[in-house]
C-alpha cells in the first residue's frame, strides 16, 4: 500500500481530499504547550496557547526573537508536535495525525512561505510550483495551467523559467507565495517573509500575500517581528515568553 493509500485508510472518509465538501475552514488552537528537553534542561517555549482564526482571515503573530512564535506556527503547520493541547484545522485534529499523515497533510492543506531556503534551488520558478502539485497527484495539464496562472498573477510570467539564484529576493518570495497557494490549501503559514527584503519590497510582498489569502478565502498566519507589516492583517496576536495574547484588530487588511 502506498503512503497515500495508507494515510487515506487511516483517516477514514478521506478528509484531506474533498476540499470542496469541507465545512468552513477554521483554525482552532487549544491549550497548546510546548516544552523542549526534560528535567533541569526543560524549556517551555509555549504556554497553554489558545487562538482561533476564521476562514478568510489574515492574522499576524508578533513577538521578539525566542518568544515562541515560530514554535506555534510549526505546531499549527504539522511540523512539530505539541507537548499538550490540540490543533484543529476544519474537521482535522492535526495533533492526532501520524508522521506519514502529517506529511500528506502539509502537502494538501498547508501552504508554507519560509524566511530562507524557501525554494528548491535546482528547480525553476515554474517547476517549484509544479513540484508541490505532483506531491498530491494533480493532473499535469491542470497543474501547468494553474502554475502559469499563479505566476501571471504574481507578476512572474517572464521569470517562470528562471532558477531561484537568477531571481531577486522579492521575486523569490513571490514564487514561494505562488507555491504556497498552488495546492489550494486551507491554511497559509508565513514565517518572517520580509526578513531578507528592504522595507518597500517587504510591504509589497506582504500586501500581495494578504490580498492573495483574502481573495482566495484562505486562512493566513504571518509570523513577523516587523510591526509595520501588521497593517495588512486583520488581527494581531502577540507572544511574549511563550504566552499568547490577542492584541487588537488591525485595519486596512489586504490593502
Amino acid at each position, binding site marked *: 500500500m502506498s*503512503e497515500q493509500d495508507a494515510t487515506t485508510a487511516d483517516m477514514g472518509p478521506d478528509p484531506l481530499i474533498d476540499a470542496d465538501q469541507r465545512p468552513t475552514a477554521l483554525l482552532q488552537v487549544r491549550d497548546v504547550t510546548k516544552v523542549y528537553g526534560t528535567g533541569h534542561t526543560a524549556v517551555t517555549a509555549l504556554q497553554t496557547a489558545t487562538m482561533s482564526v476564521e476562514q478568510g482571515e489574515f492574522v499576524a503573530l508578533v513577538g521578539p526573537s525566542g518568544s515562541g512564535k515560530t514554535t506555534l506556527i510549526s505546531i499549527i503547520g504539522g511540523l512539530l508536535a505539541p507537548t499538550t493541547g490540540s490543533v484543529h484545522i476544519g474537521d482535522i485534529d492535526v495533533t492526532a495525525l501520524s508522521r*506519514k499523515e502529517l506529511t*500528506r497533510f*502539509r502537502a494538501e492543506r498547508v501552504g*508554507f512561505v519560509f*524566511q530562507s*531556503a524557501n525554494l528548491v534551488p535546482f528547480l525553476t520558478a515554474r517547476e517549484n510550483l509544479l513540484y508541490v502539485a*505532483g506531491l498530491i497527484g494533480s493532473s499535469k495539464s491542470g497543474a501547468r495551467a494553474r502554475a502559469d496562472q499563479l505566476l501571471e498573477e504574481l507578476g512572474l510570467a517572464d521569470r517562470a523559467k528562471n532558477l531561484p539564484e537568477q531571481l531577486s529576493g522579492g521575486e523569490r518570495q513571490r514564487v514561494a507565495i505562488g507555491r504556497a497557494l498552488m495546492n489550494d490549501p486551507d491554511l497559509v503559514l508565513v*514565517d518572517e517573509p520580509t526578513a531578507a527584503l528592504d522595507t518597500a519590497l517587504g510591504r509589497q510582498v506582504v500586501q500581495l500575500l494578504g490580498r492573495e489569502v483574502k481573495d482566495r478565502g484562505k486562512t493566513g498566519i504571518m509570523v513577523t517581528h516587523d510591526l509595520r507589516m501588521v497593517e495588512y492583517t486583520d488581527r494581531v496576536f502577540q507572544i511574549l515568553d511563550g504566552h499568547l495574547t490577542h492584541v487588537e484588530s488591525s485595519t486596512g487588511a489586504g490593502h
Partner: protein
Amino acid sequence: MQLALTEMRRAKLRFGLLTGAVSLLVFLVLLLTTLSGALVGALTGALEGLRTDGLAYSQTARDNISASRLPADTVDAVAAVSGVSAAAGIATLTTGAAVAGESLDVQVFGVALDGPGAPSGLQNGRLPTTDGEAAVDGSVSLGDVITLDPSGVQLTVVGLLRGAQFNAIPTAYTTLGTYDAIVRASFDNLPFVPINAVAFTVADDASISDVVAAIERAVPGVSAYSLADAVALIPGIESISQSFGILVGLTFIIGIVVIGFFFLILTVQKLKAFTLLRAIGTSSGRLALSVSLQIAIVVLLASVIAVALTFLAVQSLNTGLPVNLNVATIITTVLAVLVFSLLSGLLSVRRIVRLDPATAVGAR
C-alpha cells in the same frame, strides 16, 4: 523521480565529476580483477585446459606435475582401473628455444593429441597430427619453426592456443614421440623416457571421486586427482589466489565506501533543500528513492565508462599475459558495485530519514 533527474540535468558538472570519479574506482576494480585472473590463468591454464577428467602423479611429487616421474606403463595400469574409460601419458619439461632469432623459454608438453590430456583453447590452425609439429600458446605465428635448445629438435607451429600457458611461460603441445626425441637428444642412453602424469577420463556411470580412490588403491606409488583438485593444488596457487582476492576485495570495499561518502557529501550539501522538501510535504521515502535513483544512474554510467577504459587498457597493456575481458566478471563486478553502492547510499538515506522538517522554520 523527476526531481532526481531534473537535479542531475541542472548540475551536469557536479554529477559529471562524480561519475568520472566513480568510473575510475570501478575501472580500478575491473582492471585488478582482470589482471589477477589473467595471471592466475597464466599459471594454471595449461592444466585447466587439458581435455581430461583427472590426473595421476607419482606419490613423491607432492601435487606438482613437474616433480612427478612415472614409468610409461603406468598408463596401462591406470587404464585398467574400473571406472576409467581412457588414459594417456603426459610428459613435460621446461627448455630454452629460439623462434626467428628470438630466444624464449617454453614449457613443452608431450601428450596423446587424440586422447585424454589433449589441450583445448585452439584459436587458429589445428592440433599436431605427426611428430615435429606443435600447437603453441605464445608469441608465434602459424608456420614458425621453434628450435629447442640444447636438443636442436625443431617444432613447426601448426596451431595457436589461448589460455594454455603454464607458470606464465609459453607452452608447446606436441606428440609424445617428439617429446621422446627431445629428451633422448640430450640423454641418448636412457632405458625409457619417463612421463610426468597420466591423464584419464571417467566412464559415464562412474564418479570422479570413486575413480580417484580406485586408482590410488590399484596403482602403487600413484596419487590421483580430479582435474579441479590438480589445478587448485599447483604449488603456490592457493596463496597467490588468496593474495589477489584480498587485493581486489580491499580495492572493492574502499571503492564502495568512497562512493558512499561521495553521496553522503552531496546529501549533506543539500540538507537545506531536503529539509524544505520535507516541510512542504515530501515523504522521506520519496527523497530516499530520489537519492537511490541518482546513485544507480551515476554507478551505471560510471560502469559503462569503466568497462570502456578497461577494454582500452587491456588492448594497450603488454603484460605478456593472456589478458581477456571476461563478460561474466564485468557483469558480476558492475552488479556488485551497484548493489553495494546502493547499500552505502543508506548512509545518505539515513541522514534524510532523520531530517526534522521543523528545522525549515528554525523551530528547534
